[in-house]
């Protein structure tokens, strides 16, 4: 079980801030593939990975990052702080 969080326009497109997902995926990319199959909203949100960033257990990582032992995965657009 992994908590999946969405921020900014990813949250708006998917229509959720957070959900708990049962997954066998070994990497973030595998999880993205599973989520994309959940419907049009997901497919649209994940259609361009180049415009997305991912954090695993609150650490910024790449899409090929392992999900081994991961409890929380967050998807969001490039950050615009400052």
């Amino acid at each position, binding site marked *: 079980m992994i908590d999946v969080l969405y921020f900014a326009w990813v949250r708006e497109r998917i229509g959720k801030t957070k959900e708990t997902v049962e997954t066998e995926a070994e990497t973030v990319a595998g999880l993205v593939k599973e989520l994309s199959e959940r419907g049009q909203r997901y497919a649209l949100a994940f259609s361009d990975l180049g415009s997305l960033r991912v*954090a695993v257990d609150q650490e*910024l990582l790449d899409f090929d990052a392992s999900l081994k032992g991961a409890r929380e995965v967050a998807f969001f657009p490039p950050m*615009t702080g400052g």
Partner: protein
Amino acid sequence: MNVRVQTEAFDFGLEANNFATAQTDMGAIVTFLGIVRNLEETNLSYMDIEHYPGMTEKAIYKITDEAANRWSLGDILVIHRYGRLSTDDLIMMVATASKHRKDAFEAAEFLMDYLKSRAPFWKKEATDQSQDWVVSKVEDESALKKWQ
């Protein structure tokens, strides 16, 4: 090192002064203040800043730790607001203290470059007509290259 992520407004003058007077053997303080800019074509109604509770402070401390490793600094202060803001509201500030000015200047620039694209904040600008997420700039990402 002091990092604050908050919705409340802050008093830049007071914060800068408190930061400066708390130093005992530092000779240089550099501050940066970021405020809400109005749009060019139309008036901004408000700006919403979203963040990732839990990760935000951690990510900022990671950046301040890196700055403390690279430069000789006496202290660092970062304040970043989230929630709804209006034109000219203060968004965030950075203050650095060092014995000599070069460290404080460079560290402040480094902190700003990284806070911009490595701290999990997202800005949305609202006008009478629309609400748009601010898009990150290519320059923001390439600004990090000079520190690598």
